[in-house]
């Protein structure tokens, strides 16, 4: 059974006990434990159930590559599923529950799946859930949804905060083992700006555990000295608990820093996403051990050999009293030796190799009294929820059992794979190393930057160096080379530290144990522990024709779980290569994609949630609207009042009231959001003549003109009133949504096409607050403020004037979107709220009410005025809307002119704008289609028109609408049928789009 040892625990603070719960059971650990080491110390090896077959799953590794031990962590606002116990630091009060089982971890109904395993091989869902089709929605989908996923979904909003941090450096070193530390030292001494990040809480990596000697002292003293020197360098930033998540173009790297996962009550953000721009990146990311593929290699208690010694040395935890070591290389012997030194039993080392003479480590093991069985292998593991023993066979054979050895843990090693993910993200290529049976980064084909040069260099074990002296030399040389390539001078005489070399016998690739294992054994030899993919599944994929490694991956789901195949990739593709009888390099690896390990979604979002999820835009009068019942409507990022609701009023009531009041008395509209663009210069008139369909150069100072803008493809893109300010200055109004867009449109044409025209443009939209003062009492209200002559003749329709009103400096435009007497008044935005307040006071006896965007829409619809975005949809040209009068016939050219001459644009069959009036006064549904005779090739009814705007008009007490209809203007009085989505068909007559005050008398006062 697994337990805490009296000795060991390099990373522990044994004076600080920590209490936590697992599945409701209270357990105890120490500060410095991971949840994994603490669980093992409490003899909790079983931690979950696999995804498909619900097989018992135990802890396999000691680091982030752990595939099995995922738990639901925390509760309420701090709850998070799928947390890896090996990367979760223990803290007081931690609560965790295991996943993917019911009713309990020990007795899981889902385990019945294993008995159906013959019917649930890889890819079974491609065949099983196909027929009958009727079952898809009500049988298969609910079943799949129910069984999908591992952890539980959180039900409460996340209580933590998150942030980003932009950082810049010359050299980014990823990995804080001895290679990374040496690389950072070299680069830092050369004067480069260095950032060194390490994903765990501790520096030094594997070397202090594996007992390396550096410069004749133990590895830990090298680590300590390196850290001391690095901390003193002003040009070096050191971070622990920071994972290099992805390498992107132009030296951009994401670092994922976990600030408070280990101290959840601390203040500050939980995670910080470092957005780093580096001159060069050194990946000192180490290597990950591979499992061996033998039957029963997934039974809890079977672990990676290096993990077993990590638990002994780092955490003082024994994974089992009796551990059998099975290996194809010398490195696993370190585990057997560590076990013996901790006072634990190693009944045997099963070494698949037959060596001509004992290697140094083999001799050491034998000297400790360990039985070494060369040429031997595990035929199968005994036990269900925990290892009870192994059946031993010859590696060369097909699994005939020679003897059984009782044990409660199996430490396996199939060799080591350099961590090449970050190297590969931007296209770095790999080369197969036959000696170590692994893929190494190919230094001749690195990921390249904009200059065609490599911008990533691998160092240490990550580049395929496994001997300590090689690691240190490689890291030193890599960093020196990088520093020099960036223009830094490396200090003379600085050499790499000396690592003691340990002579090791060559490893032997073993992709199946034993090499001739029968089908029965292959069906229990696991490759992917999380997704339950076996050797037999990969062979099945090859058999079914999925011979590309990318296809075999998707067909079997090998490597697609939350561990992304860190333990299964190489074994899987080697199995595929074997099945195809192809060399491993020709099979290749699947594509490595960021993130290297999972990062929280919240870290990606950073600060952007709640109030700052999006930048909401507010006018200077926003607070007044809010305090007076505004129902807010989003217009892009702006918020505009849709209507101002009084107590006990529905939105519809409010809108009706606003319309009636504006036409009877006085309405105020906040029009601040509309675009205001200054266009100035000797060529401004010429420029605007190109931008608009109308003639703008002939507009006289003091006058306004309503203009249409089309794209060069001829489509209507914006409209607005243009005012001539002086000889070479115009002010163009745009729609709210068009302000930035039209500003950009103007600048694009000026900068890329007409760069020799003398025109300057400035977007002054936010400089002015603007209020529309509308209704029969509009002039009376402004006269009450006083300061300007706004009589009918002093300021006529479509004229503007500067002056003061009520002491405010204003520009008054006499323009109308409602058909009423109407003034739009601009003030500097810092006075906007005060001006609005003053208008409300002045209008108090005149029946003043604010009105919102829906009232605005109805007022203009009653007058037949078009709205960009309602009557236009990107395919509409002015001629469709009867706006031919706005298209100058005198201009040689304007944006859209030629496009509008194309046959499709001059086709008489284009639908044209008309008014629509239901026969019963109902309101036509917006977007409804008018049906014609017959059906089209798809069996759909032919359509001959559609509704573009539709409202109930309180002024006329009936529904009014505008729409585009085939031959509409020629069919005045005809009745059309509009089927609704409510089962009702609406009958409507084609009428003049101007429903109210056709002569325009109301504003002619």
């Amino acid at each position, binding site marked *: 059974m697994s337990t805490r040892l009296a000795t060991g625990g390099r990373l522990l603070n044994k004076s600080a006990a920590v209490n936590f719960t697992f599945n409701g059971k209270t357990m105890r650990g120490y500060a410095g434990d991971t949840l994994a080491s603490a669980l093992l110390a409490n003899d909790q090896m079983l931690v979950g159930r696999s995804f498909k077959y619900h097989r018992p799953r135990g802890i396999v590794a000691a680091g982030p590559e752990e595939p099995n031990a995922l738990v639901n962590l925390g509760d309420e606002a701090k709850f998070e599923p799928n947390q890896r116990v090996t990367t979760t630091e223990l803290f007081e009060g931690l609560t965790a529950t295991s996943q993917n089982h019911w009713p309990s971890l020990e007795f899981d109904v889902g385990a019945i799946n294993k008995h159906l395993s013959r019917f649930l091989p890889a890819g079974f869902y491609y065949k099983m859930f196909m027929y009958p089709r009727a079952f898809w929605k009500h049988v298969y989908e609910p079943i799949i949804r129910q069984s999908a996923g591992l952890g539980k979904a959180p039900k409460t909003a996340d209580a933590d*905060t998150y*942030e*980003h*941090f*932009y*950082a*810049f450096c010359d050299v980014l070193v990823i990995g804080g083992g001895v290679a990374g530390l040496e690389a950072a030292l070299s680069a830092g001494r050369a004067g480069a*700006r260095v950032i060194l990040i390490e994903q765990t809480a501790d520096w030094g990596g594997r070397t202090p555990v594996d007992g390396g000697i550096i410069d004749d002292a133990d590895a830990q003293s090298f680590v300590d000295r390196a850290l001391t020197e690095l901390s003193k360098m*002003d040009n070096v*930033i050191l971070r622990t608990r920071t994972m290099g998540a992805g390498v992107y173009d132009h030296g951009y790297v994401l670092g994922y820093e976990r600030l408070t996962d280990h101290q959840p009550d*601390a*203040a*500050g*953000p939980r995670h*910080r996403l470092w*957005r780093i*721009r580096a001159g060069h990146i050194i990946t000192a990311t180490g290597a990950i051990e591979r499992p061996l593929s033998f039957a029963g290699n997934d039974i809890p208690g079977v672990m990676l050999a290096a993990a077993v010694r990590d638990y002994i040395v780092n955490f003082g935890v024994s994974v089992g009293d009796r551990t059998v070591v099975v290996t194809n290389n010398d490195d696993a012997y370190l585990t057997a030796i560590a076990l013996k030194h901790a006072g634990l039993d190693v009944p045997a080392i099963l070494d698949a190799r037959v060596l001509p003479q004992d290697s140094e480590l083999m001799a050491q093991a034998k000297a400790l009294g360990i039985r070494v069985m060369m040429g031997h292998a595990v035929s199968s593991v005994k036990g269900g929820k925990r290892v009870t023993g192994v059946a031993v066979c010859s590696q060369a054979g097909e699994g005939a059992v020679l003897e059984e050895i009782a044990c409660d843990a199996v430490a396996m090693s199939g060799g080591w794979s350099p961590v090449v993910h970050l190297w590969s993200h931007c296209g770095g290529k790999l080369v197969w190393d036959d000696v170590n049976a692994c893929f190494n980064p190919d230094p001749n084909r690195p990921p390249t930057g904009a200059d065609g040069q490599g911008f990533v260099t691998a160092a240490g074990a990550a580049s395929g160096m496994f001997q300590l002296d090689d690691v240190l030399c490689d890291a030193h040389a890599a960093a020196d080379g990088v520093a020099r390539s960036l223009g830094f001078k490396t200090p003379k005489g600085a050499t790499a530290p000396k690592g003691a070399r340990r002579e090791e016998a060559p490893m032997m690739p073993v992709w199946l144990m034993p090499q001739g294992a029968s089908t029965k054994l292959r069906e229990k030899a696991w490759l992917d522990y999380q997704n339950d993919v076996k050797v037999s599944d990969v062979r099945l994929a090859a058999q079914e024709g999925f011979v590309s490694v990318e296809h075999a991956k998707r067909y079997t789901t090998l490597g697609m779980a939350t561990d992304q195949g860190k333990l299964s990739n190489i074994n899987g593709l080697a199995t595929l290569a074997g099945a195809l009888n192809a060399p491993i390099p020709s099979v290749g690896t699947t594509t490595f994609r960021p993130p290297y390990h999972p990062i929280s979604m919240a870290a990606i979002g*950073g*600060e*952007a949630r709640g*109030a*700052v999820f*999006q*930048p*909401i*835009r*507010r*006018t*200077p009068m926003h607070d007044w609207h809010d305090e007076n019942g505004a129902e807010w409507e989003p217009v892009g*990022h*702006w918020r505009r009042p849709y209507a101002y609701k009084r107590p006990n009023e529905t939105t519809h009531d409010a809108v009706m009231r606003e319309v009636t009041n504006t036409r009877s008395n006085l309405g105020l509209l906040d029009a601040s959001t509309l675009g205001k663009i*200054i266009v*100035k*210069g*000797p060529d401004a008139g010429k420029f605007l003549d190109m931008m608009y369909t109308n003639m703008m150069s002939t507009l006289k100072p003091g006058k306004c003109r309503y203009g249409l803008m089309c794209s060069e493809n001829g489509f209507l893109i914006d409209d607005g009133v243009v005012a001539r300010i002086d000889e070479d200055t115009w002010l163009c109004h745009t729609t709210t949504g068009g302000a930035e867009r039209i500003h950009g449109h103007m600048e694009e044409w000026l900068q890329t096409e007409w760069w020799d025209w*003398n025109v*300057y*443009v*400035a977007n*002054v*939209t*936010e*400089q*002015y607050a603007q209020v529309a003062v509308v209704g029969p009492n509009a002039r009376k209200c402004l006269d009450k403020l006083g300061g300007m002559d706004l009589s009918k003749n002093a300021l006529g329709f479509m004229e503007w004037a500067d002056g003061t009103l009520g*002491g*405010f400096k204003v520009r008054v435009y006499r323009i109308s979107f409602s058909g009423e007497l109407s003034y739009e008044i601009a003030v*500097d*935005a*810092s*006075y906007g*709220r*005060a001006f609005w307040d*003053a208008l409300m006071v002045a209008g108090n006896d005149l029946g003043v009410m604010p009105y919102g965007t829906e009232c605005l829409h109805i007022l203009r619809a009653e007058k037949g005025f078009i709205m960009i975005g309602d009557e236009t949809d990107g395919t509409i040209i002015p001629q469709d809307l009867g706006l031919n009068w706005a298209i100058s016939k005198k201009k040689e050219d304007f944006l859209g002119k030629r496009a509008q001459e194309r046959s499709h644009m001059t086709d008489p069959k284009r639908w044209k704008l008309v008014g629509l009036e239901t026969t019963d006064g109902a309101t036509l549904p917006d977007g409804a289609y008018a049906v014609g005779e017959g059906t089209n090739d798809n069996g759909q009814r032919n359509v001959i028109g559609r509704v573009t705007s539709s409202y109930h008009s309180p002024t006329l007490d009936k529904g009014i609408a505008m729409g585009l209809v085939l031959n509409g203007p020629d069919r005045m009085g005809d009745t059309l049928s509009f089927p609704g989505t409510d089962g009702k068909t609406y009958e409507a007559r084609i009428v003049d789009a101007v429903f109210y005050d056709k002569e325009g008398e109301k504003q002619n006062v």
Partner: protein
Amino acid sequence: MSEPVTALKNASYAAGIAEISEVGPMGMITLRGDLPAKTLQKAAIAAGGVNMPDQRGILTEGARGIAWMSPDEVLILCPYDEVHARLADLQETTAKQHALAVNVSDARAVFDLRGARAREVMAKLAPVDFAPGQFGPGMIRRTRLAQVPAAFWMTDETTFRIVCFRSVAQYMFDLLKIAAQPGSEVGAFQV
């Protein structure tokens, strides 16, 4: 006659790792023209009361100054109550050349971010190298802070002056508060 108000009525926040305050109203005039031309420079210097800055530079003296905005644009800074007079002067002194001068004082919101950790707070929001020695007084940058366009410069080694559009003043204030939340020191720059 009422007084001009800033977007947030000079709101401030001092409970985090850096101090935030909305300043203003401030006078700002956008001047577009042929920057290399002596006539344009003369007009700008008269309006701004300082010399012409270099590319991505800003020169200030109290409330006055000139900031380089683009190859054909500078921003003139002055006291708010002087804007209309200076604008009128500028329009006169540039009348004979192709130039555009407009008042943008009210279109912006301005914030000061102050303290030893101010650089770190900025580095959470803008993709700019804020390490001492890389960004300092005399430099202006136009970029974004999180999701909004912003311009900023340093009025001294520990104070940033941030300019954004008036409509997003509340967003900017909330953003700066979040980036300066207690306990969020980064420790990346030597302070």
